[in-house]
Structure formats: structure tokens, C-alpha cells
């Protein structure tokens, strides 16, 4: 049977691009549908209005809001439209997806993350499940990402280091800020093991991508102006397009996947740039729109065999949504405490702090409780966007701060110290109150149902978050930081998304099989972070990339030789 393409990939980010590159490179024809525009590296600037104050890389929340449900103190749920609220569940809607705007702190999962249930037993109120694959199954693909996407770093042994097939990273570490050596020294004194944080940022140029321009903490939220950041676009998709067998259609928002009576997908219906519905078909369909949007797409793709949504007979699509749990903290390193030459070194804003602690990836501390899963602590610069930094200081003790007191406060904030931040990641425990559904009545500007996102967190997130953040704060104090605070929060970080289509061996308790193919739909795969039954205690992007390469290899096997020789 002839199709328009061998494979259609919906979503052009970290989940979709490894599939597009692997298959097109092997001679298969691939269509990538991306709802957003196609920006090139030349279109990205360090422009605070673009990235952070006007949200131009996201759809308008007026036209396409979500309904967010947060828990009240009495345990009831408050539903809020994200239009005119601080909530925004959109991330990076353009070619390359949110990987354009990541900071690129790249940590692998560790062997223990693949079997939390077996290792630590159940946690009441949490839907913890072992993964159907092991770390060893994913390790070759983590290594492949190091080469294909470009990960820079330096392996340093520590008590929870994961096994590696390669001795070290293919790219040497990026230039380090003076604080890195101070953290190393403090770690030695305290008996901890700070490690250089691997980054998806090139430390030397390769194949049309330049090396890092060293903007320090600017990477997060802004697109990279040199191509050094390993976005799916610059690292993978542009190479896929260069094969001549991968077509990327920007401004193409998929309305639904169409299925026949047997439950096989027969085509995709999408809105083009003019808002006109178009159809296209392929042998295989790969969904990778990020966890919330992938769930929404499956739920609205009803068909004769799937009245509850595609691949959703067991009702699990959208369930067990994962954010990232954890804590945070900050401190100021005052220049006045150091010699003039050291202060000048510290005032350098371009290089990276790039230090992390994983000493408590598993917490074995009797004072804290039984041996349990912990997490990762990253030490980073405060994001330098000046309006965002300044506007956090408008609230004084007695109302708003303005006039000369505000100006003196800003001078102190910007001129007198290096602002440092702790980001502590622990597992966001999957639970019955963290999920995505479709709103029964409200529609977006396309006439499609709004997504409802319930954001319930497990109290364990807070406990572990506090524990880790306090350890980070101890390190900041040890290097001489002042005004050090640390805390944990149950608020979901809306840029760290996984779950909603968990994979597993049992079709009753999972949506996808171990190869991320829908149990119920033989030509549907989901390759963004949706597959993860538990998220690990690190940012998700590296794992999403690695798993998508793993699925891509499976698809190569399944597709066999290309139907047309190129």
C-alpha cells in the first residue's frame, strides 16, 4: 500500500528529531509536522522581551489556554484558566521545540531509576512502577546522544556514578567560572563529591555549529546564537533535512490522528498556516509533542475503536503526569569578601559554574528515614535577564518598593555580589492527582477542547526537596555565600514534563509497550517524555533524546530496507 511518507513525526523537538534523523539517514521518507514556525540560529538573540517577557515562542494563552487545577488547603481542587494567570504550560512551539530553550544540564538516569519499585518498595499514594527496560538497554543511546547532539563534560568518579561504555565525554568541559573551583574545594572539605555538570553545549565547533559564545546563565529560555546548544533543530533536524528525505512542515498543527474500524491509523489531519485542514498519511506515526500535548492529541483522536481517545481503552492516556520535584535555593557571594583580583575574576559573567552533587542520589541517612531515592543538586548562575531579576525585588516589607530605596536595592543586587542558585531535582512521584484530561466544554481558537492539567504532588517530593536543597545551601555557605536560603516547593515546573503515556509490558497498566509502541495501535509510537513511568531525579531531555534514538533503531528494524532506493 502506498503512503505519502514512510513515517510521519508529529512534533520536531527532542522526542521527534532523533527518529527523523535516524530514519531519513537510512533512506526512509519522513514528514515532520511542527505547529510552530521555523526559526534558524540566526533568528535567536539574547532578547529578554522575546524570550521571557512577551513569550513569543509560545502560543497565546488568550487563544489557547489550559485549565490548571491546583489543590486548595482543604483538599478540593481549584480550576483556573491560564489566560491572565502566572501559569503557562506551553514550551518552545517552533521547529526544534523546547530543546531550543533548554539550559542543557545533561545528567543520565542511573540504574536504580529503572526499578524504583523493586528497589525501595511502594510509596503510599504514589503509582511507582519499574521500567520495562534496564539502564543497560539505554546506555548505548546515552552515548550516542553525547556524539550526535554533542555533550561536553568531564567524568569524575563519585559514589553514585552510573556505568559508562565510553571513558569520557566526546567534548571537553566548557570554560568554568571561578566559583566551580571554590565548590570543588568546599566539597573536599565537607566530604562531598562535586562533579562537572555535563552540558549539551559544544566546547568546540563541529559540522556547521559553532562553539559556545559564553553567555553564562543566559542559555535557559533563550535560543542559542551560535548553534552550540544541542537543540533538536541545530543538532539533528537540520541534518535530517540535508538528507533530502526529511520534510519539515512548520505552522502545521495536528488536529487528530484518524483510525479505521480495526484501530489502525490511516492518516493525520492538520491545520496548515492558513488554518485550512489538510490530510497526509504514512505507514508509521510517531507522536512527540511533549507530555501534555501528546496526551491531548491522543485523547481528541477518537475513532470507531477508540471512543475514549486513541490507545486509551484502559483510561491511562494522560494519567501519571510527571513534572520534576525538588527544591531550590540561592545565595550571594559578596565581592567585598575577596581581594580585588579575585573579585574581578568572580565578576566575570560569561563562563559556567557547571557543578553538581549526586552524593544523595540515593539517601542512606538514618536521621532522614529508611534508605530511599534522593536526587541531584545543580549549582548555577542566576539567570541574568535584568528585568526579571529586578522585578523580583519590587516588594518591600511594607508594600511596594519604589523611589530611591528601590534604586539602591537594585544597585546592591546587581553590583555587589555574584548571585548563585541551587536547583535540586528529585522524582515527581506519579500519583492519581497529576494528570491531563480534555475540558468537556471549553474550546481553543481552533475549535479543539482545552487541556485540563491537574498538578497534585506527593508530599515525598517536598521532603526530599528540602533535604537536597539544604545540602546545596551548606555548600554555598562553605564558599562564603551570604543571604543563603533553601526551600522545597510542590509547585510544578511547567517546563519539565514527562509521563501521561507510560510504557510497560502489561497492556492493562500501561499505554505503550517497551518499544514505545501503543499496545493497542500497531502503527503508533510515542517518543517524547510521555513514556516514562517514573522520571528520575534529573532534567529529562537527555533521556528523551536517548530513548527516541532507541525507538528509531527499532523502527529501522521494523521498516527494513527503504522501499525506494536513493
Amino acid at each position, binding site marked *: 500500500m502506498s503512503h505519502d511518507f514512510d513515517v510521519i513525526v508529529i512534533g520536531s523537538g527532542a522526542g521527534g528529531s532523533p527518529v527523523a534523523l535516524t530514519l531519513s539517514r537510512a533512506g526512509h521518507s519522513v514528514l515532520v509536522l511542527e505547529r510552530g514556525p521555523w526559526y534558524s540560529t540566526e533568528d535567536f538573540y539574547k532578547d*529578554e522581551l522575546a524570550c521571557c517577557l512577551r513569550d*513569543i515562542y509560545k502560543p497565546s494563552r488568550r487563544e489557547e489556554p489550559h485549565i490548571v487545577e491546583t489543590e486548595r488547603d482543604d483538599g478540593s481542587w481549584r480550576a483556573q484558566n491560564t489566560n491572565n494567570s502566572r501559569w503557562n504550560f506551553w514550551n518552545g512551539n517552533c521547529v526544534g521545540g523546547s530543546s531550543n530553550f533548554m539550559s542543557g544540564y545533561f545528567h543520565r538516569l542511573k540504574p536504580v531509576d529503572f526499578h524504583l519499585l523493586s528497589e525501595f518498595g511502594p510509596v503510599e499514594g504514589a503509582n511507582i512502577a519499574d521500567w520495562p527496560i534496564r539502564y543497560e538497554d539505554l546506555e548505548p543511546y546515552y552515548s550516542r546522544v553525547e556524539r550526535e547532539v554533542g555533550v561536553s563534560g568531564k567524568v569524575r568518579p563519585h559514589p553514585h556514578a552510573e556505568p559508562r561504555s565510553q571513558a569520557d565525554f566526546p567534548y571537553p568541559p566548557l570554560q568554568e567560572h571561578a566559583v566551580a573551583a571554590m565548590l570543588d574545594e568546599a566539597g573536599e572539605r565537607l566530604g562531598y563529591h562535586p562533579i562537572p555538570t555535563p552540558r549539551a553545549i559544544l566546547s568546540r565547533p563541529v559540522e556547521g555549529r559553532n562553539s559556545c559564545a559564553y553567555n553564562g546563565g543566559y542559555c535557559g529560555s533563550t535560543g542559542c546564537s551560535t548553534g552550540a546548544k544541542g537543540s533538536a533543530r541545530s543538532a539533528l533536524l537540520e541534518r535530517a533535512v540535508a538528507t533530502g528525505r526529511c520534510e519539515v512542515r512548520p505552522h502545521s498543527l495536528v488536529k487528530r490522528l484518524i483510525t479505521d474500524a480495526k484501530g489502525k491509523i490511516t492518516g493525520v489531519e492538520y491545520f496548515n498556516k492558513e488554518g485550512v485542514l489538510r490530510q497526509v498519511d504514512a505507514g508509521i506515526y510517531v507522536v512527540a509533542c511533549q507530555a501534555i500535548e501528546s496526551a491531548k492529541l491522543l485523547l481528541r483522536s477518537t475513532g470507531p475503536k477508540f471512543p475514549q481517545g486513541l490507545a486509551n481503552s484502559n483510561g491511562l492516556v494522560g494519567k501519571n503526569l510527571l513534572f520534576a520535584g525538588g527544591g531550590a535555593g540561592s545565595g550571594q557571594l559578596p565581592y567585598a569578601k575577596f581581594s580585588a583580583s579575585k573579585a574581578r575574576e568572580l565578576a566575570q559573567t560569561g563562563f559556567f559554574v557547571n557543578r553538581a552533587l549526586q552524593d544523595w542520589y540515593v539517601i542512606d541517612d538514618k536521621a532522614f528515614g529508611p534508605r530511599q531515592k534522593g536526587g541531584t543538586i545543580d549549582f548555577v548562575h542566576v539567570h*541574568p535577564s535584568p528585568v526579571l531579576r529586578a522585578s523580583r525585588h519590587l516588594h518591600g516589607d511594607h508594600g*511596594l518598593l519604589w523611589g530611591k530605596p528601590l534604586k539602591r536595592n537594585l544597585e546592591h543586587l*546587581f553590583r555587589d555580589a555574584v548571585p548563585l542558585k541551587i536547583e535540586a531535582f528529585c522524582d515527581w512521584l506519579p500519583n492519581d492527582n497529576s494528570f491531563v484530561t480534555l475540558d468537556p466544554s471549553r474550546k481553543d481558537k481552533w475549535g479543539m477542547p482545552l487541556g485540563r492539567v491537574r498538578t497534585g504532588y506527593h508530599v515525598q517530593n517536598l521532603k526530599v526537596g528540602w533535604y537536597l536543597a539544604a545540602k546545596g545551601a551548606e555548600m554555598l555557605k562553605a564558599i562564603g555565600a551570604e543571604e543563603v536560603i533553601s526551600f522545597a516547593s510542590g509547585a510544578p515546573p511547567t517546563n519539565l514534563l514527562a509521563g501521561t503515556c507510560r510504557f510497560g509490558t502489561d497492556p492493562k497498566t500501561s499505554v505503550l509497550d517497551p518499544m514505545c509502541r501503543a499496545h493497542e495501535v500497531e502503527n503508533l509510537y510515542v517518543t517524547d517524555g510521555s513514556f516514562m513511568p517514573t522520571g528520575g531525579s534529573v532534567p529529562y531531555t537527555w533521556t528523551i533524546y536517548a530513548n527516541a534514538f532507541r525507538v528509531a533503531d527499532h523502527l529501522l528494524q521494523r521498516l527494513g530496507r527503504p522501499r525506494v532506493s536513493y
Partner: protein
Amino acid sequence: MKRRNFLCWSMGGLLLSGTLPAQGKSWMPDFAAIRLAATGMDASQWKTMAAVQAHLFPSEEHAPGAEEVNAAPYLQWVLSDPGLDEATREMFRKGVASIMALSKEAHNQVFPALTSAQKEKLLRKFESQPGGRHWLHEVLHYILEAALTDPVYGGNPDGIGWKWLGHKPGYKRPPADKRYFLL
């Protein structure tokens, strides 16, 4: 259509006369081309707004104030954005109207004519009224935008706000033809 609107909005007469800014060169939005009607406020309301901004962010010998960072024309540019929702324009207009009314009621004078102490007292009173704090917060936020966003948007002339705080902008800075509404 949206893009065309944006172009007209920000480039004012320049676009209509067919004169495009030289690519990559330092170029400011044409504040003079902003029609006050599009901001939802008239000239006397803008005089009040500028006086409020100057009080919230005063000019000093060693530190720029609202006037030096172009806070009022910057806010006019923000409020004349055709993509902005009407409720935001209305919120700003209502706040100015309230301050004008409070000033007349308490002092029988226009706000800009009050002493610094009178302005402070009046704005603190306004802060305690419903919506007052939110309004002042928004005005302060846009002063900070004018002071600290890239000069290509018309505030922060010659990086005066960045220089004041010792902020180093990242690489690359946006040229005029790649401002966010043109992408």
C-alpha cells in the same frame, strides 16, 4: 495581517513612507509616530503618568530615572500595541484617572504640581485601595522594562540602564529587523 499590524504599529510613518531602517544599525522605534488615541489615554493623562513614573523612579545625578530611560514613551509604545488586550489599556487608564481624582480631591491640584511628599502620601494611599497595588506594580514593571531591555526597543537609550547596574548584555543582541514582533 498580524505582522503587518505590528509593522505599522512600531515603525510608524517610516514604513508607510517606504523608508526602512538600515539593517543591523542602531535604530529606535519612532515614538513620535505613536498616536496617543491608540494608548487609551490623552495628553493630560500621560502628563500624570509621566509624573507618577518620575516619582517611582526619580532621576539622580549618578543614576538614571524614568525620564532618562524613556519610561513614558516606552509605555505608550507598549499600550499602543494592536495585539494588546483592551482590559490592560483600560486598567492603566483607570489607575491614572483615580490618581488624578485623588489629587484634585486632596489638594485641588493636578498630580504633577504636588510636592514630592504629597505625591508619596497620595501614591501610598492609592496603593492601599482596591487594585492600586497591582496598578503601581505594573507601572513599576514597565519602568524596569524601559530601563533594562535592549535599546533597540527604545528604552534604555545607549544602554544607560545597563551601564548604571553594570549589566553586560548577552551575545547576540537583537538588531532592529529582528525585534520580537518581526520574527
